[in-house]
Structures are given as C-alpha cells and as structure tokens.
C-alpha cells in the first residue's frame, strides 16, 4: 500500500511519498492514519520518525475501516456512506464537517451500534466490538430530553440505567449542575428551558455517561451565533479539564477549525472522507486566533474541499 508521510499539522502537503513501507512504520500502520484516494496517510513530526511523541503509537480510541452504509427506504436506494476510514487517537478532538445529508449522523449511528455497517469494520481500542452501545457518551442531533422528567432527572438517566440508585445519582449530578449553568433549573421541566440550556442539559447527560469518548452530533447547531460561541469556549474548557476523546459533528466551518485538532471533511452523498486537515492552531484555543492568517487559510481550504467557491 502506498504511504504518504506528512509533516506534523501539514497533512495536505506531503513531505515524502513512498511506495515501500519502512519496517518500523508498518507496525503502526494498521493502527493509525487514514486512507485517502488509495494512499495511507501518517502524520509524523517533520524530519524524524518519532511516532510516539505525536501520539501515533497509541492504539486509536476509535477506528473505522472502509465502512459503508446504504439505506433502502420505500424503493429508494440512498448510499449514505462509502468507504469511510478514520482513526481517532485517545484524547483527540476530531471535528467532522460535511453538507447536509452527507451521512454525518449515520456515522454516529454506526459507531454507537444503532445501525450496522454493510461492510467494513469498527474498532474500539483496537478491537472489533459487536456490542458498541454503552461505550460512548453519545449526544444525538436533537437534545431528546424526556419532557416528563425534570432537568436533574433527565441528566441522571445514564447513571440510572447503570443501576445507580436515584438518590445517589441525583447527588452526583447536582454537584455538576453549576459547571453547566443549570443549578437554578434542577427541578424545571425541559419545556421551560431556553435552547442553550436544553443543549447544556443534554451535554451534561452525555458527560454523565462517564465514558471517555464523546460523540457530539451538532450540539450547537440550533443556537444563535452568540450562545454558540459562548458554549464552544465552555466546551473547550470542559475538554481541557477532562481530556476525553471527542468526535464533534458540525455544519459550521469556523466551529470545526476553532474546536478541533483535526477536521474531517465529508463529501456530499455518498459520504466519503474528502479531506483530513490538521488544525494549525495552538492549545488552549482563544477567540482571537480566528484572526490568525493560518486560520483564514485553513478556512478557505475547508470551504474548497466542501465545494464552496472561495
């Protein structure tokens, strides 16, 4: 398999291309990197092949290999995803962007086991696991709060389902409410919450799954620009603190760049990984970085791979 070695954070500008596999690299190949146009990409520090220092040596938290999914609904055949390969390293914040209908939500439904892929395999911590439900903190595209439960009782659902007694679960969740700005709304029903509060409640419910991998499907999609930015910074703060592995779906190019370590771009239906971009911004992220020249450059690159004229 041809491999392309890329400089760190320069995924799209290959430093070296090789058709033979260096011995020490082959070992890791199966575990990290991704396929694009028949080439296997590995990100390394420019010059030296110190894979460990850039986290490639560790087994990916989550990996998809050649995953395809086609829907058959009332006589229509919808090819939602085609040959998706992705690897997410532990502690990484990967954002996924793509046009509507490119199969982003389907991707999560496959990962969480709500759907099975037609072909390809999904690996968790390097192993193919048939029962994938319960391994992730999954936040669906709609907040899906249960209208008959108060905010507090909504967020404890993951704990409750694991058999933790309600009173214990409530005590545990109550301590988290201030961090999510929900302390005054513990006993309110979802119907009386604002959109931003509902998203935060759904996010807290996701966090309380206490899984180290979070799958967030457009968590801020339905919010106004101001609230959205506020929650982005708040989420980054949260992530900096806990360092879960995050896969974050978004429609918003700026959001994808501002939050992610890498951005995966899906093509229009059938969804494929059209581009994989390592974000050229330091951590912790600050709002001002949006004004940096590399931000603008990467933004145009993303827009271009999304097929938008720049």
């Amino acid at each position, binding site marked *: 398999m041809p491999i392309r070695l890329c400089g760190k954070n320069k995924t799209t500008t290959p430093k070296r291309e090789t058709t033979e596999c260096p011995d020490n690299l082959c070992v890791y190949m199966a575990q990290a990197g991704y396929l694009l146009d028949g080439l296997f990409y590995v990100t390394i520090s420019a010059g030296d092949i110190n894979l460990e220092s850039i986290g490639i040596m560790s087994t990916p938290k989550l990996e998809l290999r050649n995953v395809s999914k086609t829907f058959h609904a009332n006589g229509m055949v919808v090819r939602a995803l085609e040959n998706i390969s992705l690897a997410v390293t532990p502690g990484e914040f990967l954002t996924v962007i793509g046009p509507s209908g490119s199969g982003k939500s389907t991707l999560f*439904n496959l990962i*969480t*086991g*709500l759907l099975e892929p037609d072909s390809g395999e999904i690996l968790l911590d390097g192993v193919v696991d048939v029962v994938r*439900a*319960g391994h*992730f903190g*999954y936040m*669906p595209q*709609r907040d*899906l709060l*249960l*209208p*008959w*439960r108060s905010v507090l009782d909504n967020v404890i*659902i*993951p704990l*409750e*389902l694991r058999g933790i007694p309600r009173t214990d679960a409530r005590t545990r969740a109550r301590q988290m409410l201030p961090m999510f700005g929900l302390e005054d709304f513990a006993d*309110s*029903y979802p*119907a*009386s919450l604002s959109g931003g509060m509902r998203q935060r409640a759904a996010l807290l419910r996701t966090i309380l*799954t206490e899984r180290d991998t979070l799958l967030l499907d457009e968590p801020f999609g339905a919010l106004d620009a101001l609230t959205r930015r506020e929650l982005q910074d708040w989420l980054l703060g949260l992530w900096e603190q806990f360092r879960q592995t995050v896969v974050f779906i978004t429609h918003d190019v700026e959001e994808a760049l501002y939050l992610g370590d890498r951005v995966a771009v899906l093509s229009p239906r059938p969804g494929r990984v059209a581009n994989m971009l390592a974000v050229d911004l330091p951590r912790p992220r600050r709002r001002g970085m949006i004004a940096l020249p590399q931000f603008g450059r990467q933004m145009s690159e993303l827009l271009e791979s999304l097929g938008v004229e720049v």
Partner: protein
Amino acid sequence: MDISLAHKQQKHPLMPAAPRWQVWLPILMLVAFLIGWEALVRLSNIPAFILPSPGAVGAKLANVVLNGTLLHHSIVTLAEVVGGLALGLTVATVLGYLLAKSVTVERALAPYLVASQAIPIVAIAPLLVIWFGSGMFSKVLISALIVFFPILINTIAGIRGVPADLHDLMRSLRATRWQIFSKLEVPASLPVLLAGLKIGATLSVIGAVVGEFAGANAGLGSMISLADGQYDTARMFVGVLALVTMALALYGTVTWIERRALRWQK
C-alpha cells in the same frame, strides 16, 4: 416558573376575567330548574308515576339513604364498575402493548378485535348473564368488555407514538427491555393512556347497568328496573342520580390522577 405563569395569564388577552359572582351561575341555573320543575308538577296534573316532583324525589332519596337500600345497591354497582374497569384495563393494556410491539400479533388479532366492536353490548349482555349467572361476575365482564376497546386503541396509539429517536437514545445507553418499558414507554404513553381511561371510566358505569338490566338481584341498575315495575318513578330518579354521581366521581378520580401524573404538561 414566574415567567411561565405570566405567560399563561396572557394566553387570552382579549377575554376579560370573569366577575366572581358568575361562579354561582350554574348553581343558580339548577335552583331555577328545580323550581320550574316543582311548579310544573304542581300546576299541571301530571301523575307522580310519570313525573315525580323534585320534592318527592328528595323525600325518596332521604328514605333510601336512611334505610340503607341506596348504599347497598351503590356498593354492588361500584364493585362491578371498579372490577370491570380493572379487568378491562389490564387486558386492554397488556394486549394493546403486544399489538403495538408486534406486527404479527396485530395481523393475527386485528380483524377479530375490530369485528368484536360490531357486536352491540346490549345484545350480548343477556347471553353473558345466562352463561355466568346473575351475580356480580357477569356485570364485571360486561363492564370490562365495554371499556376494553377505547383503552386498547389508546394503548396502541400511545406506545406507537413513542418517538423513535427516544428509543435510539435509550438503546445507545444500553437500556434493557425492562428499562425501556418502565422509563420510556410507560411515561411517554401515559397521557394517551389516561385519556382512554377517562372514556373507559364513564363507559364502565354504563356497562354495569346494562348488565344489571339483563338480570340481577342487586345494584343500582336492578334497583331502577325493579322500581320501574312498581311504577315507583321517584326511586328511578334516585337511581339515575346515584349513577350520574358515581360516573362523575370516577371521571373526577381519573382526572385527578391525570393531573398529578402529568404535572409536567402544565
């Protein structure tokens, strides 16, 4: 909380709040109606076995309350009604759940369930009394039969109406079947189910009375048909009054349960 209340109050900004005295309007209406009725009976020469005066009905009511007859018959009918409601509710919700969850079960049973609704309960009530005797059990059955269908339909609608994405959420959290049932399906379908129970509550009274008409030795229905035979029309009025009260009380109870269980909807 305050905000939502303020919002509620502004719901009908064009309708001025009703003056306090209007609360008494329905009662005033009743008093006027009773006076008119009494006057009608006194002024015209309608015989008491056709239309007794409110006074006569009142006297009869006092009579049957004091000698315990009314209580005796009411308890019998109430037991039949509650029994019928419980039986009908249990069978309808269990069957409704199975029908809602399994297309196979639905295909197998749906034609018969629909056809069963074409049978007039009044017509098969005597048959059930022949088969199961003139005791309370046949009335419980008839009452259960009459409440069965609306509760069944509402159970199916309720369970089918649980949004698919909530099911997905529960599955992604690895909920067990029992957890999905108790923490999602039951609470999510409760509003529709309780609406069905409300209809069932009033129907169950009708069922018990129909059964008692078909043959019984106790109960408000049998008290009415006995009074009918004796041209004791005042006693019939008392019986009807007691039945209306019972139906209203049941309806009120379900409404109360509904209000408590569905507080989140307010």
